[in-house]
């Protein structure tokens, strides 16, 4: 499973990249592999608030549905418009074209409570 070094992660298998107070969020390669073919993603509406650790959407696959938990507190600024027509992007490019939503976060700090790539890799090794 791919775990890019530069990203941060959650126990619920989301990844986060923060740049200029905007956090981009998606689900990890481990998560998309466990889910199987993604058929639909329900995303938090732009302009709405999300809370770290709270469910804010759903990923529906052939065999199952999983909650998406927001890794950060903040306001949703943008969602990935490609996902609705092509939910398979989550499977084929979970860290790139398969990004899910962006959140404006408090500046100058790394969001608290997130895992490093090393910590997340250890977490998914335990699952196997």
């Amino acid at each position, binding site marked *: 499973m791919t775990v890019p070094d530069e990203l941060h992660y959650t126990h619920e298998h989301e990844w986060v990249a923060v740049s200029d107070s905007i956090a981009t969020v998606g689900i990890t390669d481990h998560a998309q*592999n466990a889910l*199987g*073919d993604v*058929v*639909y993603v*329900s995303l938090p509406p732009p302009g709405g608030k999300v809370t770290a650790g709270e469910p804010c959407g*759903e990923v*529906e696959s*052939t*065999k199952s*549905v999983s909650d998406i938990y927001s890794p950060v507190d903040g306001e949703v600024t943008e969602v990935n418009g490609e996902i609705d027509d092509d939910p398979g992007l989550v*499977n084929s490019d979970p860290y790139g074209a398969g990004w899910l939503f962006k959140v404006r976060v408090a500046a100058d700090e790394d969001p608290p409570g997130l895992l490093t790539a090393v910590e997340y890799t250890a977490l998914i090794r335990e699952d196997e």
Partner: protein
Amino acid sequence: MTDPQSRAPRRTPLTAVHEGLGATLTDFAGWLMPLRYGSETAEHNAVRRTAGLFDLSHMGELAVTGPDAAAALDYALVGQLTALQPGRARYTMICADDGGVLDDLIVYRLAAQEFLVVANASNTAVVAAALSERTAGKDAAVNDRTSDCALIAIQGPSSAGILAPLTDASLADMRYYSGHPATVAGCPALLARTGYTGEDGFEIFARPQDAERIWAALCEAGTSDGLVPAGLAARDTLRLEAGMPLYGNELGPGITPFDAGLGRVVKLGKPGDFVGRAALARRARAIPERVLVGLTGQTRRVPRHGYNVLWDGAPRGTVTSGAPSPTLGVPIAMAYLASDAAGLAGRGDAAGRLAVDVRGRAEPAVLTPLPFYRRPA
């Protein structure tokens, strides 16, 4: 001390092949089976468009033989197996005294006194025990041949074209639901034109030691047609589209064949008693309290097993199986629904009144006659 509940799942004669292909494996009824090899949607689509290859060696094979075999099966099962001609197969069920289904089965008649009963992997032991009990005192033997059988299925419109060069059987002469001995890839087998996908296809019962050779021969013969291995995830969405029941979902001990809309398998007209006759005769005459229906979801959120079906906002039924349909591009489901609601839901003025509670939100649905998909004529 090892917990006996955590005994490792059994490997099939083809598990090593699936591992070599990088399949995602799962413990299914105590067997290590391929869930998918890559994309289960691609595997499903391949079966509809060309062909897919399945390892079904987890299924149970029970040989019932002897001068009383046919009569014994007439007593043990709800169907009339004495009327089954050698070389033919029949879909049937084995029920308890109260008419509840113990398993759904395909029975092949190989000769006047020789039958092969194919059971679901999860129920093989129960069916074997029930058959032994029900044949006691008759001149018929029941033998569990599961460990001696590998089962490979090729399913899809290209199946016959791919298989024909590999077998001495004349496929053009094989009717749907027939089965007889043949060689496949030079190996002795029972070849049947049966399946669980709604497509044309064949099921090949072979010796375990021949499984890899037959699998490899089919893969090679099927390359130019785009034949792909297909796992249990695709198997489930294919049978759901075809409106076929799954034991544990649409069928179970508290459900009669009539409840599932499959009263046709119960041959109340056959001479002689059979297990469950009285209860099933009563049930055949009764007005059903609930019926098995098909549902098509009108949003993208998928009705899943166990979700409530709502009529005018009130829970009146339960989803038994649900998944996104790769062929139709919408969510589909089967559900047991109160008969009165089902009657109303089928009418022209039902719009907006039928829904499924999907994780707390009511998603509108429409009643859809089964099957959702029929293969082109």
